[in-house]
C-alpha cells in the first residue's frame, strides 16, 4: 500500500504502529475484516478487522495489530525544493504480476450477468449477497465481495429458485432450436445439447468433461428421482448451475495447460475475457468477446487492445465509469447519511438520489467525453433535476427530468464541488473540513493516516460568533489530534464555501463573518497554498502525485484488491501512468493501459496452488 511519510510534515501520528492497524498486504485470502472506529468526525479508528486470511487489502488483521506500510514509502516532504512525487513505484520489474484471488460475483455483477444471460431484471440488490463497502479510515476504496456465509448461501438459493421460476415460461430461450419440444426419444440428446451450449454461457468458459458428466447425471436425477418433465429438468439444471462455483466465482479457467512465464502465469483467453468484461462492463462477456477468446485472440496485447477499444466505446462501459467515482468518494453511501431537518429542510431521499445521479453522470460525461483529467476538476457542465438546481442556485430548471446546465464558474468547477461529494463529506448540520480533507488526502493522494487515538475530546458544537474554521482550529490544538489534523483540516478548509449539502455561501452561519476558504495541501513534496476549492482543483489536476494516485486507484478498481506490497504491480502501474501522462492525461487512455497491463493479463500463482 502506497503511503506518504507524515513525519516530514510535522505530524505526530505514525503510520502502522500500535493500534492503527494500517492496510494489510495483498494476500490472497478473503478476510472479512472490517476496520472501524471512532474518530471525531471521520468515524474511523482502530481497525479491528477479523479476517483470518490476510485478504485482499483486508485492512488490519486483528485487533491492535501493526499495519504494514506498504511496498514503497514516500520521501520526506521538503519545503522550497523541487516538487517530488512522494508516490514512488519502485521496484518495478517487467516480469512480475500480482495475485488473482478467487472472488465471487459482486451484487452488481450478479444482477448484470443475470440480465445478460437470462434477460431477467426482476431481482434487486437485496436478493443477492452484498459486499463490504467500508467508509472507515484506510478502508479499501471499492466494494469487495466477502466469503459466502450461510445467509449468503441462502440468498443465492432463493435467487436461483426465483430465476428458475421466471424461466419456466420462456424456457425455449435457453434451449437449442430443435429441442424446444423434443420427442421423448430425443430428450436425452437434447439435454446433452443444452448442457453443451448453455453450460459454457452460464459458466462463461468451456465445460470440463467432468462437469458435463455431473450435469448429465443431475438431469437424470431431475427426470427420475424428482419426476420432472424434460423442460422441468432443464429448468432444474439452470437452478443448480446458478448456485455452482462455475457461475458464482471469477475463476473462469481455460481448458488445457496453464501457460507459464517465469514465475507468473498468463491468463487464458476465457479468463482474460471475463476479467476484461467484468472490469469494463461489470457483466459477462458478449458474443464477440467469447468469439475472440475462442479464437485465441486475447493471447496478445494487440488482441486485448482491440477488444478494450470496442468495449470502452460501448454504453455498457458507462456504469463502470460511474461506479468508479461513486465508490471512490463514497457518494454511493448517501442514503445512509441523514441531515438535520431543521437546518436542511429541503434534504430528502429524492434530493440525495438526484445528487448521486448527477455525481455519477458527471464522471461518465468526463471520461466518455473529453476524457481529460483536468476537466474532472474544472468542468462546470452538469445535468440536474429541479430540487438539485435549487441547491446550486440555478433557475429555469423545471419538471422531473434532469436538464443539462452550466454551473456558476465562480462557485463550482469539477467533481469536488458537486453536491454529492459535499453532502457525503458534510456533517448532519454543517460543513466538515476534517471529512473533506481526509477523503481528498486518502482517496486522491493515496495518503495513509493513522487512526485517531482514544479519549479525543469532541469538536465544539456550532456556536454563535465562532466560525467553523475557528472551532476546528481550536480542536486541532489538542495534542492528540494535531498529528493528523494538521494534514486534513487545511485541505478541508478550502471547502468552507459549501455547507452540509453543498449550497454555496460566503458568510459563515455562526460567526456571521466572511468565509476564509484558504488552505494548504501537501502535494508533490511541497506544501501548496490555495484560496478556495477551485484553486485546489487546479492544483490536483496538474499534480504528478494526484495523477499517480489516480492510476493506482484505477488499478485497484480493475483488480479489486490492494496493490502488491512487494511491488509486483509497480511495473504495470508505472506503465499505465506513463500511458496516461503521455496520452494527454486522457482517462480513457489510462483505463485501456490498465486493462492491457502485465498484471492484468498475468498473475502470480497462489501459495499451494496446483497448476495444470
Amino acid at each position, binding site marked *: 500500500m502506497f503511503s506518504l511519510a507524515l513525519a516530514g510534515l510535522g505530524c505526530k501520528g505514525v503510520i502502522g504502529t500500535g493500534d492503527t492497524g494500517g492496510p494489510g498486504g495483498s494476500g490472497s485470502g478473503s478476510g472479512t475484516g472490517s476496520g472501524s472506529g471512532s474518530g471525531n468526525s471521520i468515524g474511523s479508528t482502530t481497525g479491528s478487522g477479523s479476517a483470518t486470511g490476510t485478504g485482499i487489502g483486508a485492512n488490519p488483521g486483528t485487533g491492535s495489530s501493526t499495519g504494514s506500510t506498504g511496498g514503497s514509502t514516500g520521501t520526506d516532504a521538503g519545503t522550497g525544493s523541487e516538487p517530488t512525487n512522494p508516490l514512488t513505484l519502485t521496484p518495478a520489474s517487467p516480469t512480475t504480476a500480482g495475485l488473482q484471488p478467487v472472488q465471487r460475483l459482486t451484487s452488481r455483477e450478479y444482477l448484470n450477468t443475470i440480465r445478460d444471460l437470462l434477460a431477467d431484471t426482476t431481482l434487486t440488490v437485496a436478493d443477492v449477497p452484498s459486499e463490504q463497502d467500508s467508509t472507515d479510515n484506510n478502508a479499501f476504496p471499492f466494494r469487495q465481495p466477502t466469503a459466502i456465509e450461510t445467509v449468503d448461501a441462502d440468498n443465492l438459493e432463493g435467487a436461483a429458485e426465483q430465476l428458475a421460476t421466471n424461466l419456466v415460461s420462456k424456457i425455449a430461450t435457453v434451449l437449442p432450436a430443435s429441442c424446444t419440444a423434443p420427442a421423448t426419444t430425443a430428450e436425452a440428446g437434447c439435454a446433452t445439447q443444452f448442457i453443451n451450449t448453455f453450460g459454457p454461457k452460464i459458466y462463461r468458459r468451456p465445460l470440463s468433461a467432468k462437469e458435463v458428466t455431473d450435469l448429465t447425471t443431475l438431469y437424470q436425477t431431475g427426470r427420475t428421482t424428482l419426476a420432472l418433465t424434460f423442460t422441468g429438468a432443464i429448468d432444474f439444471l439452470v437452478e443448480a448451475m446458478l*448456485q455452482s462455483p462455475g457461475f458464482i466465482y471469477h475463476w473462469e479457467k481455460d481448458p488445457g495447460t496453464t501457460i507459464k512465464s517465469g514465475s507468473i502465469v498468463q491468463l487464458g483467453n476465457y479468463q482474460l475475457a471475463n476479467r476484461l468484461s467484468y472490469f469494463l462492463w461489470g457483466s459477462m462477456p458478449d458474443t464477440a468477446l467469447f468469439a475472440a477468446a475462442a479464437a485465441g485472440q486475447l493471447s496478445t496485447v494487440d488482441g486485448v487492445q482491440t477488444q478494450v477499444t470496442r468495449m470502452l466505446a460501448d454504453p455498457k462501459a458507462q456504469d463502470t465509469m460511474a461506479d468508479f467515482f461513486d465508490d471512490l468518494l463514497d457518494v454511493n453511501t448517501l442514503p445512509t447519511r441523514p441531515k438535520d431537518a431543521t437546518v436542511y429542510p429541503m434534504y430528502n431521499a429524492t434530493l440525495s438520489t438526484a445528487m448521486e445521479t448527477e455525481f455519477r453522470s458527471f464522471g461518465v460525461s468526463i471520461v466518455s467525453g473529453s476524457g481529460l483529467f483536468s476537466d474532472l476538476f474544472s468542468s462546470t457542465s452538469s445535468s440536474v433535476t429541479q430540487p438539485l438546481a435549487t441547491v446550486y442556485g440555478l433557475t429555469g430548471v423545471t419538471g422531473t427530468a434532469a436538464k443539462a446546465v452550466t454551473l456558476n464558474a465562480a462557485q463550482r468547477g469539477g467533481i469536488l464541488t458537486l453536491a454529492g461529494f459535499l453532502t457525503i463529506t458534510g456533517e448532519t448540520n454543517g460543513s466538515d473540513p476534517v471529512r473533506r480533507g481526509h477523503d481528498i488526502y486518502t482517496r486522491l493522494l493515496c495518503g495513509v493516516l493513522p487512526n485517531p487515538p482514544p479519549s479525543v475530546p469532541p469538536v465544539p458544537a456550532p456556536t454563535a460568533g465562532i466560525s467553523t474554521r475557528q472551532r476546528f482550529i481550536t480542536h486541532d490544538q489538542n495534542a492528540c489530534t494535531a498529528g493528523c489534523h494538521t494534514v486534513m483540516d487545511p485541505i478541508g478548509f478550502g471547502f468552507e464555501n459549501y455547507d452540509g449539502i453543498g449550497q454555496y455561501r460566503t458568510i459563515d452561519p455562526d460567526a456571521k463573518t466572511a468565509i476564509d476558504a484558504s488552505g494548504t495541501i501537501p502535494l508533490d513534496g511541497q506544501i501548496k497554498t490555495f484560496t478556495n476549492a477551485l484553486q485546489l482543483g487546479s492544483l490536483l489536476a496538474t499534480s504528478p502525485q494526484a495523477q499517480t494516485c489516480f492510476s493506482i486507484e484505477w488499478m485497484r478498481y480493475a483488480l479489486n484488491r490492494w496493490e502488491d506490497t512487494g511491488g509486483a504491480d509497480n511495473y504495470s502501474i508505472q506503465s499505465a501512468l506513463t500511458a496516461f501522462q503521455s496520452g494527454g492525461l486522457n482517462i480513457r487512455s489510462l483505463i485501456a493501459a490498465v486493462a492491457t497491463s502485465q498484471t492484468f493479463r498475468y498473475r502470480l500463482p497462489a501459495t499451494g496452488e496446483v497448476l495444470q
Partner: protein
Amino acid sequence: MRSDRYSRRALLKAMGIGAGFLPLLNAERSPAATASGFPTRFISITWTNGAVPPNFYLPTSVSAGPLATTTTLPSVLSSLQPYMSKLLLMRSANTQTSPFNLSVMVDAGNTFGGHSAYGSILTGFNAGGGPSLDTAISSNLASTAGVTNAQLNVGGRPGGSSTSYRAAGQKNTSQTNMSTLFSSLFAGQSMPVAQVNALFQRRKSVLDFVSTELTTFAANLGTDDKITVQNHLDSVRQLESQLQSSSSPSTGTCTAPANTGAGLSFSNNSGYNTLITFMADIVAAAVICGKARCVTMDLIDDGGGNSLNFPWLNISSPDYHAIAHQGVSGYTQKTAIDQWFYKACVAEVVTKLAAAPEGSGTVLDNTCILVSSDMNIGNNHDVMGIPYLIIGSCGGFFKTGQLVTLPSAVPNNQLLTSIAHAMGLQVTGFGNTKYTGDLDSSLKA
C-alpha cells in the same frame, strides 16, 4: 423476493408435523432444556455507547437482594418496569457502575478500544479470537439435541460488525434485510405437504450437486482460496442441515408478526425506528415458534452510531456517536436515545415473550436475554464497566427480580460462562483461558 412456493420455513414446519411434538423432542430433554422439559433460549441484544450511569444503574441506596415492588427502575429501563420481577440487575457494590470489564481487551492494551469491542462481547477473546457464546450454544444444541437450526444472527447495520463468531477471526454475517428475514421465516406456512416434500427433494439434490462442485473447484486452488471456498461449502452444508432438521414449536401460539417493515431498509435511516421494532417482533416470533433458539441482535456497527440520528425523538444532530462523546453535557439526549432503544427493542421482545404461555409460565421464563453494549459510558471508548442486563430466568437458572452487586473488574468471561451453564453447556470457563470460573454462586437461583 422469495416465492411462497419455496419457503424453507414452510418446509420445516411440514416436516415437523408428527415429529414428536409436545412439549419437546426426547432428544432435547437434557441438557438444553428446563426442568419442566421446555427448551431454553438465549437472545443477545447489543447496543452501543454504554450507559448513562445515574439513569441506568440503581442508586447505591438500593441494597443487593430482591427488588421491592415499590422500586422504581432507572429512567432508561422504565419501559421494563412491568417486568421487574424478570430482571437480574447487576451493579458494582458501592458505585453506580457496572462490575464487568472486557478484561481480554484491557490485557491487550486496548482499554479504550470500545469501537472494536464487538469481537469480545460474546467471545471472551480479544478481537474475536474465538467462537462466540451463541455459536457454542448452537453447536451444543446440534450435537446433543439434534437441533441444527438454532442460530439466528440479525443486525441493524448492513456490512457492520457482529458479536457472533463461528471461529477465531470468522464472524458470522448478520441478516440485516428484515423483509428477507420475515419471508424466510414466515412466508408460505400453508404449503401442502406433498409440495413441501417435493421441494425438499429438489433442494437436497441441488445442494448435493453444489457441494460436489465446490469440492472439485477447490482441489487445485491456493491455500487462502481454499479457505474461501471452504467457507462456502460449510454454508451449503449448513443449509443442508437445516433441511434435515425439524422445528420444535413451543406450546404457545405461533403467529407471524405483522409485516410492519415492508419496503423499509436499514440502508438508510428513514425507517430505523420502525425497523428496530419490526426486528424485535421477528425475533420474538421466531423464538416463540421454535424457529430459533439462539439469537444475536447487533443493532449498531463499531462506529458507535455514526450517521445515526433520531428525528422521531427530535434529535436530528449531531449523530449518536457525537452525542456520546459529549459526555455529561450529552447525558440528556443520550438518556432519551437509550430509553427509546430499551422500549422499541428490548421491551418489545420481552413483552412478546412474556405474552406467550409455556407450561406454568411463559416463553420469557425459559429464556435468557442478555442486553449489553460495547463501552462503559461512550465518551472515551472505555471497555471497563460494560453494562450488562439479564432478563428472564432461563428456566429457573437465574434469580430474577433481584439486584446483585459484584466487585469491580469482573471479567465478562465469567458472566458468559454462567449463561453457558444456564443453556446446558458444561464448561469451566468461556473464551480466554486466563479467565475461568463463573458467577453461578452470585446469579443462580
